[in-house]
């Protein structure tokens, strides 16, 4: 198969970029995979794409580069295809509309995968006939503006499939958007096995990681940790990440007198070696589209105490088996669950082992396998439906046409492979 991902900017840093790279790299072991980045603002991508995935851009916005296109007058005119209600709308233009359309018209891919709503709309409206059209939702339907939901509702019926990262979000898509004939499937993000040995559960550290923003509710975690310290002053908390809430969290730590026990570590990359220093991971968010850090911590052998917030944590953690789920915004409950694991070495180590085992289902090989199966089914369905439509016409023309299409597809595949 020739699989082509369409992404906003492959050269940045973010969850979508990271998970797309993981998936592309794994699929590339068996298939021809390319990532098409609408924008390019720096020379090399931050995350490792491996040697087999092709990467190219559509619009070069490297300001000091010789091919800078940001000053093109068409880039100053508003986009018409990319939906105005999308949060990235301002970065799109007549120029991006044109380049994306050109790419989707000329592509030789068997499968086109969009990685954000606006790009999924492009694929739905502009892809040439033939390839499977898939739109990925990396956030959630519920968090989109009503105007964007309307735009998706009118464009998405032309997709073959929409994938979400949780079952909960897949249910919202089925219930709210009602897209007849569009396959809606939840496929979780993938997290590779860490390059460091798993934690052994002996260190007296709780670890949390994420951007320091309101939605992560680190204030709740810090308040919970005050109760932990009262009972177990030998345990400490590290919070990795930077963000707008840093000063407020710093002030809270000082106010609660926790400056010997709670540490704001700043951003860390890679994170896996930091998880491995802990024995328990904590997640206090009020909202997690997926819960990437939960899976990362589990893959390092840590049991995770997480809020049972929408959408991801409850689908990742088996409460009481490989971690614990607590109510949102409740420091008492969070402290209680942390102390349960702190005070019971055997349970902590057992749950850490269970987390290590159960998180293997998020291995890129497993997740890529699910995508591969989905692509295969959708390709077969597309070819089948072509056959089905043809029945309404002359039979001979149908068969000839179907075979011709099949042959053309084969030739295209061969052609692509030799590039």
């Amino acid at each position, binding site marked *: 198969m020739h699989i082509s991902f369409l992404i906003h900017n492959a*050269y940045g*840093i*973010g*969850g979508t970029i*990271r998970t797309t790279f*993981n998936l592309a790299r794994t699929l590339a072991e068996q298939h021809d995979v390319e990532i098409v980045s609408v924008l390019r603002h*720096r*020379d*090399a*991508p*931050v*995350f*490792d*794409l*491996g*040697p087999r*995935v*092709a*990467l*190219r851009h559509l619009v070069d916005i490297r300001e000091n580069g010789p091919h800078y296109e940001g000053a093109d007058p068409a880039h100053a005119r508003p986009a018409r295809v990319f939906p105005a209600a999308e949060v990235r709308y301002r970065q799109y233009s007549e120029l991006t509309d044109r380049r994306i359309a050109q790419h989707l018209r000329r592509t030789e891919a068997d499968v086109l995968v969009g990685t954000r709503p606006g790009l999924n709309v492009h694929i739905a409206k502009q892809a040439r006939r033939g390839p499977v059209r898939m739109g990925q939702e990396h956030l959630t339907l519920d968090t989109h503006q009503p105007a964007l939901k309307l735009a998706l509702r009118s464009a998405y019926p032309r997709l073959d499939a929409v994938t979400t990262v949780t079952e909960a979000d897949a249910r919202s898509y089925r219930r709210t958007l009602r897209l007849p004939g569009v396959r809606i499937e939840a496929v979780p993000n993938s*997290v*590779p096995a*860490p*390059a*460091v*040995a798993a*934690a052994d559960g002996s*260190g*007296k*550290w709780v670890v949390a*990681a*994420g*951007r320091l923003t309101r939605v992560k509710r680190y204030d709740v975690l810090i308040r919970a940790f005050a109760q932990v310290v009262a009972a177990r002053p030998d345990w400490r908390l590290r919070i*990795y*990440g*930077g*963000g707008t809430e840093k000063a407020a969290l*710093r002030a809270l730590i*000082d106010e609660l007198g926790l*400056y*010997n026990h709670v*540490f*704001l*570590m*700043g*951003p*860390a*990359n*890679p*994170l*896996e*070696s930091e998880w*491995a*220093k802990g024995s328990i991971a904590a997640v206090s968010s009020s909202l997690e589209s997926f819960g990437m850090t939960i899976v*990362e911590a589990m893959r390092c052998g840590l049991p995770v105490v997480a809020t049972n917030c929408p959408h991801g944590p409850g689908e990742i953690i088996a409460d009481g088996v490989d971690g614990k789920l607590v109510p949102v915004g409740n420091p008492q409950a969070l402290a209680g669950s942390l102390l349960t694991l702190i005070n019971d070495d055997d349970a902590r180590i057992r749950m850490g082992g269970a987390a290590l085992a159960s998180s293997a289902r998020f291995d890129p090989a497993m997740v890529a396998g699910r995508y591969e199966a989905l692509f295969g089914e959708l390709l077969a369905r597309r070819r089948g439906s072509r056959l089905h439509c043809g029945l309404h016409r002359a039979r001979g023309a149908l068969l000839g046409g179907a075979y011709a299409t099949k042959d053309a597809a084969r030739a295209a595949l061969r052609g692509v492979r030799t590039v």
Partner: protein
Amino acid sequence: MTASSQLTATGPNTKESSAIDQEPEVPARPGPDGTEPLRERGATTAPAELRADCIADSAGGLTFDLNVPQDTHVTWSAALVLRLRGGDGADDEVRLPLGPNGAGRLRAVLPSTVALAEGRWNAYADLGDGEDPRRLLPGINDLRSLVDRRPLAGIGRLGVRIPYATKFGNLALRSWLRGPHAEAGDILVTPDGMTVSGRLYGAAPAAGARAEAWLRRTAASAEAPAVTVTVPLTVEGAEFSFTLPYAEPAGHWEDGSEPWDLWLRLTEGARPVRIARLLDDVADKKQVFTYPVMPVRTAAGHLRVGPYYTLDNDLALRVAGPAGS
């Protein structure tokens, strides 16, 4: 591999980088193999970069494992080279032999017994191919055994080495070499002063042991500061603690932000021992270990006083004037 002097390291770097979704403090690093179509890379391809993973042991030793590109020819004289930044003496370069580690990578070991002068050491790889040593990039640093490091108190001289990524994204080590050493632990801050507790290494305190704060502004020399504040030191076994009231340092304030360096004088006439926080995995303590700043009222006005760690991870006290002064 036919000749014994030729090693070919194999195995692509498939290391996954995981990151918090935000701009890191070091510049972006590209994929190790070059992921762009050749036409975009042009004719002048830079030599493939060399990346080293680093594992620390609890004694202070470090093991480096290098990913070298396939078909890289490495000779018997290959070495990982450490160079002290700003140094040019004979002891300011350390060469550690690089050999195959059995997993298609190259390994070098820095044992705890090899002394490195205090400072920042840049890391290079000399593949023995006649080329200049090449700057190493950081891979995965597994420093978990440093996190709660607690050597035996009787250790004569304490060596601490923490690998880190420089702000330009290169691999470097911070090194400390101290004996005796006073390791700062918890610090309790109250409105009137602070209580510092910690642990002594390689020290034998006697009666009259004390803690001293030296006003940096007036220090004529390291041995003879002009203005010092002295408080008694409590010692129990290897554990020490002292309480430093803020009133006296605040009373010496003249202008701006005035740092005081903190020392222990363990016996009368002995060399003072700098108090520092060295025994963990955090290369730069200043941003991570921070403490409340307390308002202190003096004849000169409302001052702000609080402990902090210097860029060398030594403990200090800052007395700052009223905001905006």
